[in-house]
């Protein structure tokens, strides 16, 4: 039996709703609130049932507008490359600081997407981030922790 991708997503959502509902029932409420008409787990329980209801309906009912996507033409390589870069950005931002990690993230992203105009790559990385940081830090007084710039003595 062949199942369409949309129905497969609905099946996953059905399982997710079931888990959500189970977790909603596990929410600890105060003893005096246990039998109240409304407590902290009432709304999530309704939501869990609503999720089960709509996803079950989608799985059971015939599809009127099935979505067909040709998976062979999707560019997985670049997409996964960018997702990995974003994860690495998250890993480095607190250690290396905003300036260095953001500039390197931008340079790496341009390269992953196939850009080779180095003047623009370099302009739209370090100087661009520096100007943006000045706007945030210098003009709007939004403090950005940056160990790298602190080490260089540029930021306090």
């Amino acid at each position, binding site marked *: 039996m062949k199942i369409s991708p*949309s129905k497969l*997503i*609905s099946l996953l*959502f059905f399982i997710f709703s079931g888990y*959500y509902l189970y977790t909603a029932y596990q*929410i600890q*409420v105060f003893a005096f*609130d246990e039998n*109240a*008409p*409304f*407590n*902290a*787990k*009432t*709304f*999530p329980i309704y*939501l869990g049932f*609503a*999720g089960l209801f*709509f996803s079950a309906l*989608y799985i059971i*009912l*015939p*599809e*009127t*507008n*099935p*979505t067909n*996507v*040709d998976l062979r*033409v*999707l*560019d997985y390589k*670049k*997409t996964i490359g*960018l*997702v990995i870069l*974003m*994860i690495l*950005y*998250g*890993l480095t*931002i*607190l250690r290396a600081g*905003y300036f260095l990690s*953001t500039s390197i*993230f*931008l340079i790496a*992203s*341009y390269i992953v*997407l196939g*850009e080779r105009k180095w003047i*623009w790559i370099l302009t*739209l990385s370090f100087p661009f981030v520096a100007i*943006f940081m000045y706007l*945030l830090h210098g003009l709007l*007084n*939004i403090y950005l*922790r940056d160990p790298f710039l602190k080490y260089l003595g540029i930021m306090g």
Partner: protein
Amino acid sequence: MIEGILIGLQTALSFKNLMMVMIGCFAGTIIGMLPGLGPMTAIALMIPITYGFEPSTGLILMAGVYYGAVFGGSTSSILINAPGVPGTVATSFDGYPMAQQGKAGKALAIAAYSSFAGGTISAIFLLIAAPSLSLVSLSFRSPDYFGLMILGLTAVAAFSSKGNFLKAMMMVVLGLMLASVGQDTLSDIPRFTFNNMNLSDGISFVLVVMATFAMTEALTLIFKAKDPTKAAKDISLSQLGSIKLNKIETKKMIASIPRSSVLGFIIGVLPGAGATIASFLAYGMERNFVNDEEKQKFGKGSINGIAAPETANNAACSGSFVPLLTLGIPGSGTTAVMLGALLGFGIQPGPRLYQTNPEIFWSVIMSMYIGMVVLLILNLPLIPYIARVLATPRTFLIPLILFFSLTGVYLMSFNNFDIYMMIGIAVVATFLRLYDFPMPPLILAFVLGGLMEENLRRSLLISDGSWSFLWDRPLTVIIMLTIIGIVGWQIKKKFGKKSV
């Protein structure tokens, strides 16, 4: 009242306050254009600056920032499909497709004219009807609000689902589920936090909107880059097109302005409803008003599809000041920030504000109109320059969208956990979008989740756990019947078609 208006005009037209309106509108437009930095952030950033000002000057500046940021948000919705604020999500339904067709200039011009018209008409409404309109909002009770929110969600699901209501309803539920993460507002009991401190405050709106719109848009652009049928074209500046509207286009735009202004203003007056519901409802209403030929264009670059939400969200901005100024109840998250600022000035908004501080009450109302004029003068000539962002090659544009998204979220918490969560949500949302699971219902549900639970809580507690509150009051019954009508219409659509 006349005396009050004159006092307001005198205050608003002083050189200092005029400058504040202009600076506010300009700063708001720039900040609002950046995905992730919406009016709430923009106004919050202004609060420390305004403490040195007189209360009326500070409020005028913040009102200018508010309008500017709403307009700036619609600009980024149209150009890069990255609404910085929920109130401009509906604008992206038709604004972005129009930009992709090479008519970005027209889309931006329609947004500018509609914003101006909506804001102006509602400012006049506000001037005339502020005192009596507060009575209308007083007649709405928790069951009505709860019903109104379900109506908003059902309507959004119905018209953004591309023919698949159930997919949209699943997204509504997912949005509400995401909103339920964090501490319960009343009891502070943690829910779905899995003992993770980073989740105890819930998931931020900016994170979800950036993940499901800006980041997903960027990832989809790369993902589909090889697809000859679906790849987005590289946009060049030549595709910006003219900002001039022809007679037919102007006629279409003008037709939608009055009804969307009235709807937007009324929705804006209701505390908690605000620009988001107004824009979505106006979009849905407009779709029902136009003929079948025009209806087919919705979601593909319809003029009415841009004019209606843009008119309504600006009208709702003015409307949201009614409960703030007359009742002391913020009509939206943004006016809640303004309420905080007012309290900081030592001013308690409420029915007595007329008598105790007439210059504040009326000058804010008058500066709204001046703000609208400034926005039109400032934004329309700048459209060709603003639209230059379209000329950026995709190899630069995509990383820059990701950069603004990541920075917007990082600035909210300075925490890399939020970055990981955003990447996770964006990856899931990219796959969902690939199979036509719509994101706007998810966003609206996420925004309304807390309010919906709060109103359901009050309704159930008042009725002692009985669901009879849904048919106890005529107003609630009307709202519920409208919801049943929308669901019935969707069922008819589903089973009226030939199944595969």
